């Protein structure tokens, strides 16, 4: 996809669509405990925003251009964030992923669980978004061989 589609209609309309998609993705992520949503769906939505701009504008001049190699590193960091939150509860004296021991001071133990879950969902979102971008790059890029 070096050149992209690039017609005038697509070029004008995607600039309206993509910001809404990204904001909707973040909304779905944060509302994971109140309504259907959560990390995986938010990651897919955010990836759609990035892929749409790359499809229309081509590989070089796209907004939010993240190469496939960097995407793999960021995907690993996203899931490592999840595992590190789980690990930190081991160091603070509890079992793996025991949210009750996270070092934030809130009044309600249920709120502490909600904060912990928000943390791991952010890690999952980053991982899924970068994985989908990496798959897209593997399918449409020209590889030098791996």
């Amino acid at each position, binding site marked *: 996809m070096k050149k992209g589609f690039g017609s005038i209609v697509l070029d004008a309309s995607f600039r309206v669509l993509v910001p809404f998609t990204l904001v909707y993705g973040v909304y779905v992520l944060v509302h994971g405990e109140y309504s259907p949503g*959560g990390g995986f769906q938010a990651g897919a939505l955010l990836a759609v925003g990035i892929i749409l701009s790359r499809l229309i504008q081509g590989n070089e001049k796209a907004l939010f251009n993240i190469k496939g190699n960097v995407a793999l590193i960021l995907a690993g960091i996203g899931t490592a964030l999840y595992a590190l939150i789980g690990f930190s509860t081991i160091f603070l004296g509890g079992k793996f992923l025991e949210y009750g021991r996270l070092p934030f001071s809130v009044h309600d133990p249920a709120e502490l669980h909600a904060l912990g879950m928000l943390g791991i969902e952010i890690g999952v979102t980053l991982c*899924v978004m970068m*994985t989908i971008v990496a798959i897209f790059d*593997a*399918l449409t890029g020209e*590889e030098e061989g791996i």
Partner: protein
Amino acid sequence: MDSFITGSLIYWLVAALFLLGVYGILANNNLMKKLMAMNIMQVAVIVFFLILGQKLGGTLPILMGSDTTVDHYINPLPHALMLTAIVVSLSTTGVALALLMRIQERYGEIEEDDILRRMNE
């Protein structure tokens, strides 16, 4: 007839979808079509799990108002499990597509008998 439609018809449909998927993997020649049939098969398994959580007259499992009797809400556990299964399906499709791109570059096409013929030359 009515109890058949509300009771067992959905299971028969899911079984037909699963068997269509397996038949598609076995009988197609084109590797891309095999991949799509595999996706259909995985979706059939996911829908089977979701059926297990339905209740007659149940609604979304979100606490609305002060009604807390269990019979009003469908079982949310199969939905949570199937979220993981959908992600597994996505990853498998991603790996398979990357492998297909590799095969297309090295062998020039993705029809299975042509690939096997070229591999054994």
